């Protein structure tokens, strides 16, 4: 087990600053998620930690040791690739045994270890198959088994669930988390899917444009976004943003409710909401429309749980409200959080 630390790590491909000065420190045994839109440098950062890519600048430490000059095999890491990268010509058994053989584990111990790893993911029955004879979910398990079998100090996972269908993804997410809790190995997990990130991570590092915008627990990054990017990237639909003199004010769609739906009348800011369209999502309804009055023509979204019984109708203007403590304030130029002020 080990702590991974990056100190001002950069990677430039010509003019592209794929990773642009990242400082991160994992905790012991932590599940850290790197979350960000496609192309923000997550994979590049992970590959640098793995040793597959040389940083243009900065230092990478694993277990307190600078590993910049160490090859991947000397870093005690295991990586699961988005494509799984199973060896197509080897049976599952040999795929899982490959890292053991490469590290010179005594021959007699190999079958035992392979079975242990296969057992963790319930793939004992597939050991004699070739990768092409497996389903997507099975391949993903084989890739995980191949990663755990050598008992690495750090796990690196690059969007391991993105090739699975939606239903499988949910159950795989669950298994992955339980498994990580059980073995307690420090894990860095890359994804562009915020639901995955919120569900899995002990902490989430939100990245954009090669930089880490915020790092914190799922609750922190959701409730206290450090800037407008994080506010907009997390949450679906994203945070509503209004312009007030000298700053931006944001509030989550689920906090923007009909006046009557709020429990107390104190500390509410009333807003007139013209509803243009309603989307039924089963458990929730999304109300699209624009504000009237103080913030004319500002498009906003409200998210009503099905437990809210206040009648709403498209085409009507109704009285909505937000609790003042649910407002978040951002600097208009930098997008960074600023102190609260009256709206």
């Amino acid at each position, binding site marked *: 087990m080990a702590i991974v630390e990056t100190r001002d790590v950069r990677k430039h491909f010509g003019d592209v600053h794929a990773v642009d000065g990242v400082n991160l420190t994992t905790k012991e045994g932590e599940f850290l998620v790197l979350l960000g839109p496609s192309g923000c440098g997550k994979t590049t950062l992970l590959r640098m930690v793995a040793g*597959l890519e040389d940083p243009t600048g900065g230092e990478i430490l694993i277990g307190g040791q600078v590993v910049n000059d160490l090859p991947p*095999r000397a870093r005690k890491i295991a*990586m699961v690739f988005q494509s799984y*990268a199973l060896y*197509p*010509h080897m049976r599952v058994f040999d795929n899982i045994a*490959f890292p053991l053989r*490469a590290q010179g584990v005594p021959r007699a111990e190999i079958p035992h270890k392979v079975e242990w790893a296969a057992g963790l993911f319930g793939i004992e029955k597939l050991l004699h198959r070739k990768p092409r004879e497996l389903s997507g979910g099975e391949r993903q398990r084989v890739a995980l088994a191949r990663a755990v079998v*050598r008992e690495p100090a750090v796990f690196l996972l690059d969007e391991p669930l993105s090739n699975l269908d939606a239903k499988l993804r949910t159950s795989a997410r669950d298994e992955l988390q339980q498994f990580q809790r059980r073995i307690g190995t420090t894990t860095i997990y890359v994804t562009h899917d915020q639901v995955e990130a919120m569900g899995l991570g002990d902490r989430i590092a939100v990245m954009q444009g090669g930089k880490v915008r915020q790092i914190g627990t799922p609750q922190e990054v959701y409730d206290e976004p450090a800037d407008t990017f994080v506010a907009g990237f997390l949450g679906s639909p994203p945070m509503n943003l209004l312009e007030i003199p000298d700053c931006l004010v944001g509030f989550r769609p689920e906090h923007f409710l009909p006046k009557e739906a709020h429990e107390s009348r104190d500390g509410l800011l009333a807003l007139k909401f013209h509803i243009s369209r309603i989307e039924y999502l089963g458990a929730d309804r999304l109300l699209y429309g624009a504000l009237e009055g103080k913030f004319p023509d500002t498009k906003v979204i409200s998210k009503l749980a099905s437990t809210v019984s206040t009648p709403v109708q498209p085409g009507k203007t109704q009285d909505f409200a937000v609790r003042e403590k649910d407002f978040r304030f951002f600097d208009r130029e930098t997008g960074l959080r600023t102190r609260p002020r009256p709206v």
Partner: protein
Amino acid sequence: MATLERDLRAPAAGRRFGFVLDRPEWLGPLMIAPAVLYIVAIVGLPFLLALYYSVSDISMGRRTLGFVGLKNFISVIPTSKFQTSLQNTFVFAIVSQVLVIILANILALALLKEFRGKWVVRLLLLLPWVAPISLGTIGWLWILDSIYSVINWTLEAFGLITADGWPMYLGKPYLAMGSVITVHVWRLLPLATVIILAGLTSIPKDIHDAAQVDGASFWRHHFQITVPLIRPILLVALLFGLVFAFTDMVVIFVLTRGGPYDTTQVLASLAFFTGIQGGDLAEGAAIAIFLFPLLLAVAFVFLRIARRSEVT
């Protein structure tokens, strides 16, 4: 009325033709017909002719053509000329192919890496393949010549050999065989390298990365990941090279004409000297097709293995 009728009929005719193009059972044969015709005319007919010549008593300057059964084979196979050539053929083909595969692998791996001026190296590498082979071989004739050999001049300039100790590259049995093999390898190397390079670039990068993370050493990586993944294409390259080495004689013809004392004579060149230059077409044909069953078997086995080891 008439024009209307014609208007209706015209597209119908067009449709009928389009219909043929839409049916795989018609379109397939139609598309492949030129290739079939070509192969029958250029390869099939001469081959059948050679097959027939080998069991006939044809020779230049005679107008009759009689069937003699296996007489040509029976009379030529026991001759020492034939036995030597048969042996030489195997030595020549197998040694040159082993060298080609090893060297082509090394070259292809080197060319896979990114480095400055890579395209120049690739171009230079392909030159022996694009240059007419007889011209290239004549160049080698000069390089290996007993009087003008630049190799010997260079070696002497460095004091490695003395003026009266010059090796006669094409005049001494083992040196001559070594020389023709060298030139043949030089000639086949580009194609083999390009084929293997194509195989190597088709391996996804993630696979190599995974092997690296899994801790594979260079040799383990190469022989347990890379080579198995390009095995089908490697086998095809080897098959091509082998059949080529068994049947081609340009290098030998230009460099040594089979000499000295038939030490570089192979079946292909022997067939040429016997059949074309010696005028005994029937015996030449018998020599030429002697290896055909063997090559057919080799091709069959290789293609079977290649298909079995295909990985997707």
